[in-house]
């Protein structure tokens, strides 16, 4: 699925032509380990492991130009960490589960139905959805409500492109994302940890914010199943669970949607769930976070930033008491 394009007039190399970070890191690591003459057996084993994970064998490339407005200079999280440490309860509650069990998810054929308060309801198959707007690569911080964070290069386009196309009516105040619910493909559905299907939602102005990314890929490839294939939301100023995965339905609605985690524990997970260092989770502080792959055992956790550092969304919430509407 190579889509040739040069938006922004910037002629950047396709991300697929760049040596993936994990690979060159692995090379450097290898050289270093050889140089210090560490225990060769272990080093070689580790090296082989990492190289194998550097790229998802046989994964489809999904090329897109980097949008320089969202080109973070922070170090990207290793592909292996981003694809083996996931919260995706449809595939198990342990963060190691999805990478092991999500192979049962069938991402083709796939269609997304867009319905509710819109003038042009439609059902789009995945290919039409991907082609709806130019794909961009954006490097976003991801902050999990559990207190850890990653930096991930996503591939997608602003959700506003889709919203424009279906022409919401004046009644459309909120937007609701519904994840696939299929027991045959998703072993986690057997457990009643959440109300299925997984539903997430946004206020209309939030959904229209350019940061809200309808996402099809990461690290220059189509999304791995465990990361929410084939299409998901990425909302970098909100805690990770707000970004619905494996979306089959997008509904435009009048009333604030009942969202999965809010139903499960309303005192712990608010509808907005904006990243906010001043509003603690009842069971842990949100003031700091551990960056996966960087803040290890002997490093202090780093400070969490308001809106995860995306201050451009602040105007969406002016006049709101974010301590109450957390």
């Amino acid at each position, binding site marked *: 699925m190579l889509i040739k394009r040069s938006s922004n007039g910037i002629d950047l190399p396709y991300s697929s032509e760049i040596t993936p970070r994990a690979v060159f890191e692995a090379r450097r690591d290898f050289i270093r380990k050889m140089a210090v003459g560490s225990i060769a057996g*272990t080093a070689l084993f*580790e090296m082989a492991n990492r190289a194998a994970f550097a790229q998802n064998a046989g994964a489809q490339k999904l090329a897109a130009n980097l949008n320089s407005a969202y080109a973070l200079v922070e170090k990207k999280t290793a592909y292996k*960490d981003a694809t*083996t*440490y996931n919260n995706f309860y449809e595939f198990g*509650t342990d*963060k*190691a589960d999805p990478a092991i069990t999500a192979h049962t998810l069938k991402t083709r054929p796939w269609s997304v139905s867009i319905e509710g308060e819109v003038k042009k309801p439609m059902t789009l198959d995945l290919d039409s959805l991907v082609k709806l707007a130019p794909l961009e690569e954006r490097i976003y911080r991801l902050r999990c409500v559990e207190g*850890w964070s990653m930096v991930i290069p996503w591939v997608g386009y602003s959700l506003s492109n889709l919203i424009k196309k279906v022409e919401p009516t004046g009644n459309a105040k909120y937007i609701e994302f519904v994840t696939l619910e299929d027991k045959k493909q998703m072993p986690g559905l057997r*457990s009643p*940890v*959440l109300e299925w299907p997984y539903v997430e939602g946004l206020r209309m102005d939030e959904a229209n914010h350019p940061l809200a990314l309808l996402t099809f890929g990461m690290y220059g490839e189509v999304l791995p199943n465990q990361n929410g294939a084939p299409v998901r939301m990425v909302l970098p100023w909100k805690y990770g669970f707000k970004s619905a995965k494996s979306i089959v339905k997008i509904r435009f609605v009048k009333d604030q949607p009942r969202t999965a985690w809010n139903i*499960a*524990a309303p005192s*712990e*997970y608010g509808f907005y769930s904006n990243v906010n260092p001043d509003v*603690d*989770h*009842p*069971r*842990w*502080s949100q003031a700091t976070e*551990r960056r*996966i*792959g960087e803040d*290890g*055992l*002997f490093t*202090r*956790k780093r400070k969490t930033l308001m809106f995860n550092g995306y201050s451009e969304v602040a105007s969406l919430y002016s006049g709101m008491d974010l301590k109450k509407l957390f």
Partner: protein
Amino acid sequence: MLLTNKQVSWFKIVLFILALLPFIRLVSFVFLDKLGANPVEFITRNTGDWTLYFLCFTLAVTPLRKLLHMPWLIRCRRMLGLYAFFYAFLHFMTFLWFDHFFDVAEMWKDVIKRPFITVGFIAFVLLIPLAATSTNAMIKRLGGKRWQWLHRLIYLIAPLGVLHYFWMKAGKNDFSQPVLFGLIVAGLLMIRLWWRWFGRDPVVVTGA
């Protein structure tokens, strides 16, 4: 089943090594870089799990000893209890060191503010006097009766540990494991109540 003194000694050596294996595995993972994406979380959960396992093992000694007619098992109980303390100590140190970087004021805020940490902290603090009075000399100094009373704190510590785990999991809505631990601990405590209320050793049916 009766064992000779020598056999019991061997059994204890094997048990000691087995009980140390989780720790050796953890340390080797640190050096082999196998703790996964979030090493602190891995260590915290691993040491917490093993604390609960050893609390259950310790509580299981008396019922097993009676039910299986293996009186010598009592000689392993101190070691199992001390291992429970050992893993609880590692669990606490992970919290204090890797999570709070020895910022005791910060840690204290966490302990007071969050009930699941409060409960875990209390359970750990209560384990300290038990570990400290585990030597033969201390048993003598306290006197058997008083020592036994003190060590009945385990009946409080184990449920507190399960509650700590239950509350930790509460927000994730995933209760299967805490409930399992809860049932095991409840079973181990109930059997004692049963014996207390309905005679000493109702299970001695066959001539052992």
